[in-house]
Every structure is written in C-alpha cells, then in structure tokens.
C-alpha cells in the first residue's frame, strides 16, 4: 500500500506547484476575455485592441527584435568562451571561468542591472575611462536607450547561453575533428563543417533559453531603458498596474505566453529535425 502511494507522494509538491501556476495563468487569461467599460460578458475586444493599435503592436515587434538581437550577440560572445573553456583551457582556468559564470548566474538580477548602471552611467566607469583617455569630450549616453537595454539583456542571458553550449561542446567526439585534420582540412573548415554542426543542439537550447528570457524581460528595460525602450513586460505592467487596466494587461500577457509557446515549439521541432537527420 505504502509502496503504491510513494510515487504519488513524491510528485505531490510538484503537482501542487504546477496547479497553482495554472490557476494563476487561467485567472489572467480569464481577465483577458473581459470586455471594456466594466462589461462582464466574455469578449475578444482586448485582443482586437492589441492587434489593431499600432502603439501596442510596436511593443511586440520591438521586443521580438530586441530578443533576437540580444540572443544573437550572446551566441557570438558565448560560443568562443564555451569552446575555450572546454577545449583549450587548463583545468585551473576552466574552474576560474566556471566560478565567474556561476557568480553571474546566481547573483540577483536587479543587482546586476544596478552594477551596469554604475558602469554605464554618465559618471560611470566607461565614461570616466573614455574621458580620461581623451576619447570623449563629454559623457556618452550609454544607457536609458536601446544600447543600454541590449547590454543589460546580453549580460543577463550570457551565462545561460555559455552553459548550454558548454554541455554540448564537452560531449563532442574529438576523434571526428582529428580525422578531419588528418584528411587535410584547415582549422576553419573543421570548425565550420565538423564542430559547428555537432554543436547545434546546444545552440538551439541556448537560443531558446536566451530568447525567452530576453523577450520576457522587465527589470532591464525598466532600469536601463529610461522609458524609451518598449518591451512587452513593461506594457503589461503599465496597463495592469499603472493604469489598473487588468483586461488589456492580461491580454498582452496571454499573447506573450502564446508567442513564448510558439518559440519553444518551433525550436524544439528544429532540434528534433536536426537530431533525426544527424542520426541517419
């Protein structure tokens, strides 16, 4: 009897957590179907508002663009680090890089953004250096604009990208690269035709995580955007909290949820397709 109940007992906390999340989500979705002007009848008017209002559409298209750019930059910056860490670094260097990543990974997100404010601010480290070296006459505006938000997003997602890539690079069959070298392939060709294709599962996993984290980002545009960088989470907060317009805020959250689901589905399908092709 006890043995039969054991698995249910073990999954009970997870089920409780999932059901709480689902209840919250269904409540939000419920609000999104409320009509305007206090109408209780179910309606799609909030979704219609989001689709037809150019201003709201801008929040979505701009967030998707920022998420794509930040993910791409994180991939470009993260790949060499992950590669170096696994292939070239000594065990001591590897431990050091890993400790640095772990510190970035575990430190509070708001704290990280405040750290960036200290670095990118008008009297921050970068501006002091630039002016000290004579590269700028007056402080450069490095935040409270798109550039600041991109720096914030990339610094937030970089550890996720590196760790996702690192997992795959660690499992690379090095004999394949050696075989290619023996057959006379130059290093750049080995990288493009052997190493990179083998890393695709890690690239997909890192892209998925990074893209979704960027797309849903709230703290970064709030702290580093200066009200000029329109991201979806800011729209949700603005509508639901600043304007107490819960139906519209909930509809925006519903659309964000759908987009996130679509991205997961698309990248998972891409990963499966690659896996099948690779196994053949």
């Amino acid at each position, binding site marked *: 009897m006890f043995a039969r109940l054991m698995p249910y007992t073990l999954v009970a906390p997870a089920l409780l957590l999932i059901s709480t999340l689902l209840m919250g989500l269904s409540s939000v979705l419920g609000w999104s179907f409320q009509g305007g002007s206090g109408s209780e009848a179910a309606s799609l008017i909030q979704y219609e508002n989001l689709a037809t209002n150019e201003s709201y559409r801008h929040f979505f298209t701009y967030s998707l663009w920022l998420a794509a750019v930040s993910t791409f930059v994180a991939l470009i910056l993260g790949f060499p680090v992950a590669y170096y860490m696994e292939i070239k670094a000594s065990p001591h260097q590897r431990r050091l890089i890993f400790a640095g990543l772990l510190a970035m990974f575990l430190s509070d997100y708001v704290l990280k953004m405040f750290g960036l404010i200290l670095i990118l*601010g008008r*009297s921050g480290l970068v501006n002091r250096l630039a002016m000290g070296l004579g590269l700028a006459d007056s402080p450069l505006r490095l935040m*409270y604009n798109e550039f600041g938000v991109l720096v914030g997003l990339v610094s937030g997602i970089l550890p996720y990208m590196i760790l996702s890539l690192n997992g795959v690079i660690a499992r690379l069959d090095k004999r394949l690269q050696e075989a290619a070298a023996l057959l006379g392939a130059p290093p750049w060709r080995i990288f493009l035709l052997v190493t990179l294709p083998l890393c695709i599962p890690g690239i997909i996993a890192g892209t998925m995580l990074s893209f979704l984290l960027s797309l849903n980002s709230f703290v970064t545009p709030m702290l580093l955007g*200066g*009200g*000029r960088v329109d991201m979806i989470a800011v729209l949700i907060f*603005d509508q*639901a909290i*600043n*304007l107490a317009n819960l139906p519209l805020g909930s509809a925006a959250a519903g659309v964000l949820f759908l987009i996130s689901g679509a991205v997961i589905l698309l990248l998972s399908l891409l990963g499966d397709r690659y896996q099948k092709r690779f196994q053949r």
Partner: protein
Amino acid sequence: MTTLSRRHTLKLAAASGLVGYLGQIGFSQAQAKKLLKIIAWGGTYGDAMRSSWLEPFAAASGIQSEIQLQSSSMETLASLRANKNRNDADLWFSAIAPTSLAKNDGLLSPIPVGQLKNASQLPAAVVNDTYVGIWSLPYGIIYNAKTVPFEITKWEDLTDKRLKGMVSAPYGANYNGMFIALLALLAGGDEKNVDPGFELAKKMKPNFSIFTTSDSEQIRLLTSGEADVVAFAPVANYFAARKAGAHFRFVCAKPYIPVSISNVAILKDANVEAATRFIDFAISKEPQQKIAQLLGCLPINTQSDVAPALREAVPADTEFRFLQEGVMAGQLSGWNDRWQREIQR
C-alpha cells in the same frame, strides 16, 4: 445513570474541541475587526503616517491600525478590481483619479461626512462621501544649479534649447496625468482638450532624455547626475534630493503650479465606524501639522501651520492651480498611449 463508551467519549471530545476551535476563530475575527487595516504608501510617507496618525490615534482611541503597503494607488486599484468583494482593508490612501475610478466600480463605502467633527476646518471641495482630502502636494521643476546653464523660472523654459537631453519627464500618464493636463492648460487647452498640451510637449521633446515612473527614480537620477532637470516633481522629492547637496533648486514655475490632493477613502465592507474615527483624527489640527512638517506637504486643515521648509520652497505668493482630476481619470489610458507614441519614442 448513562455511561459513555470510549467511542462516544472520543466523539464528544472531538466535538468540544471543534466548538472551542470555532469559538477561537470567532474571537480572533472579532479581535481582528478592532484592527484597522490601512492601504498606504511606504517609505517616508508610511513612517510619517505611523508617527503622526497611527500611533497617536491608537493611544487616543484604543484602536490599533496597520499599514498594508502600496507602491502606487493605481496598483491598489488594480488589486481591488482583481479581488472584488474579497478585500480585507478598511481605509485606502490614494489620489483623486484612482478614487474616482474605484467609486465607479463600486469598491468604496460612503463616508458618513456628518460624523467628521473636524470636517468644517477643511476646504469644502475636499470633503465628500467618496473621499476626504488629507494633504496637498505642490508640483514644480527641480534642477541642478551646477549643470543647468541658466535660472529656470517658468514652465516654458523646458523648451529652451540649452536644456537639450538634460530633462527627465514623467513616464506616460504618471502622476495621474497631471503633467499632460498642465501642459494642456499652459498651451490654451484644458483637461478635456489636451491636444495643445501635446503640441507643447513636442517642443520639449528634444530636451527629454529619460522618462521616470516613480518619485524614488526621480531622486536617484538627480542625485546620481543622470538627469539635470526633473520637469515635474512633487516638492517632497526636492527635499529628498536636497539631502544630497544644496545645488538642487525647486522652482514654483510661472504662471502657476499644480497641486494634487491626496485623499483617504473607506473601502467596501470596511469597519466604517473605526475608519470614520481615524479620518476625523487624521484631519484634525495637530496631526495635520505634524504630518505636513514631516512630509513637506501642505496641510489640508486650514487651521494647521505650514512647515517653514515648505514655506521657503513654495513662497506665499505662489499661484496654485487645482486640476480637475476627476475629469482626467477616465482619460488616463488614452493619454498614456498617446504620450508613449508621440513623446517617448
């Protein structure tokens, strides 16, 4: 004589326990009813309320009260709307726009104005059965005299080209749309016609560099040197910035400065009797004088003295303008979208 079996004894014990437990719950709920729950702002505001109102009121009436924190009154409105009929707070400190919206949604109890003995000492316009004014805050321009190349004296100075990229303005319809309404009035419009205000804001646009969402952000930007001018700020922010240096100036900009009325409302299903007693205490002369001193705001009670620091920042000859916040309330969403689209981007 009837003897009880062991099973009956256990049942009886359980039933007694249950009755006792339910009695305890009833007692706790009755006790809880004596505790007045107040939704209000935290930080300096919360501290000042505790020492000027909550603690002296408890000493005078025996009614304890506690503050449930809100970061903005619109946030509370959202929460009240979401939890309709499941609210356990009694009083809500807010601004006129959110209070008006809450009234329309049936989230408030009428205030028994006749029971407020001190109401006669308040301007008639701030006492009604929806809300009672508790203090008023003048708004002006704050700037850094070290970095701004000229003395700012009027709202129109915000269009001056020398301020390019130096000014921070409210985000969207923040401050309940008061900045947008003010610009409309200055440009010949009013609370119902804000088109001229947006035209004026477009002239200021090259000077706007950052859009702020809160008082604390304004203060942080000023004191860290990220913003040289805050286009629209309550005088309390000036007092906070001034702690970081004497080079910050508060300008009661010409031709007039807007004043917002903060208020208190009684929530639906509240302990109306205790809530009314609290309001009556809060608007009386001494507590008003004390909170005005601590917050640097104008007391709503006409018999209370204005704090010397405020008198210094806002001279007696300053012309005030009270905005029709009730009229503005229904338009905030549209203003917010338009401000984001035409000014922030």
